[in-house]
């Protein structure tokens, strides 16, 4: 069982959270003219490393806040969690 430290509530069991994927995917700016390739990159292409991965999690059965997690995809070890506006 993963124990995830929500930056707002502290350490809780994995059961309270849901996953949100690659934290580096950045939606193109609203109203900005962008190419098909840029859309393509945003919608379909994510980082998929073996090792340290920064990702989004949602404390859905808790405070309902989204936050960032730095986790190892090979060992499932969690190194750090931060609020969305903070650097991992």
């Amino acid at each position, binding site marked *: 069982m993963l124990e995830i430290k929500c930056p707002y509530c502290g350490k809780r069991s994995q059961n309270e959270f849901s996953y949100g994927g690659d934290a580096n995917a950045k939606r193109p700016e609203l109203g900005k003219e962008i190419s098909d390739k840029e859309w393509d990159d945003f919608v*379909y292409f994510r980082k998929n490393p073996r090792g340290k991965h920064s990702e989004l999690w949602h404390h859905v059965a808790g405070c309902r806040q989204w936050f960032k997690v730095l986790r190892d995809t090979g060992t499932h070890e969690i190194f750090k969690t931060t609020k969305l506006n903070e650097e991992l």
Partner: protein
Amino acid sequence: MQKYSIFNLIKNAFSNHQNWDVVWRDPEPKKEYDVVIVGGGGHGLATAYYLAKEHNITNVAILEKGWIGGGNVGRNTSILRSNYMWDPNGLFYDYGMKLWENLSQELNYNVMYSPRGIINLAHSDAQLNVYSRRGNSMRLNGIDAVMLNKDSLKKMIPFADFSASARFPIFGGLMQPRGGTARHDAVVWGYARQSDSMGVDIIQHCEVIGFDVQNGKIQGVQTSRGNIKTKKVGLCVAGSTSLLAEKLNMKLPIESHVLQACVSEPVKPFLDHVVTFGAGHFYCSQSDKGEMVMGGDLDGYNSYAQRGNLPTLQHVLSEGVAMFPNLSRLKMLRTWGGIMDMSMDGSPIIDKTHISGLYLNCGWCYGGFKATPVSGWTFAHTIAQDKVHELNSKFRLNRFSTGHLLDEKGVGTKTWIG
């Protein structure tokens, strides 16, 4: 190659079965091959087999980091089916079903093909409507599909919960009678033995650590056992595809996720078919040894760990108990995990790439086992002819930019939900 037959079995009994040929050789890698297949799983071995058999290309090496059949082909729930609604999927997988039917004879190896039928349970009128639509689409493509009502289901799967108090009452179901199971390890060994006998080198414990690309063309691969020259490389590495693609500076629409499965202690015959729960994600069948073979959802976060966590297993098995209440009395024998190459629309990629001589076979999500023969067959064609076959013409890499997605489940790009 020594044929497996009753006569040879009797003959070898006289020498206490000490004189059987080795099933495949353990060769040293040569300096150069016509084709190098990376990944000695089901798809890689099938690709090599069809390259040799259908296209007469026998100077082929299969490079496997561990041992053959140690990845997903040894970790699945061995279900075969082609009950897809969209034409490209239905036609592709059904061609695979036809290959399965004759596979034991073709490979001279008993893959224990068992067309026992796969039943998808429906738990509402709306779901029955969706299933009849899918069943009709299947029949239009020449795939067998039968709608089942509650009474006939009661006779077929008497241990399911048909009570009115069930949380998800059973309304009916969709069945593909030709669906079923096969013995996954036998598929590996059968393909390996035949490929080897036609001259394919199966090289185990040989990891690919880099690629030699010059002027946009593949020239060779660098491995833990030396450099190998080749003009054609096929990648069949499932969950590790992104890691190899990274060495080629390629980004793929794939995420790697862990999927767990489990088997119970063996019990007497209890379930004659493969059955899936319609109100969640759970599927089960009973192996010839009597174990219940069960699986369901992904763990739900990127992972290369080949092992999962208990919360997901508990969630999946509680769905199983909702469907078959007496499963709750069984002890679990083993659980394990495999790494799925989850594509962004849930469908596979079998294609050429922008690098000449580099071919890609990935994105199988959690449905790769049933496709083993047809994946190898189409991939061999794509490699040998340097063009996609009609059957895999909709499984191209560029569909994500052109918008021709094959989203059979319609779950979008959140692969961990699908």
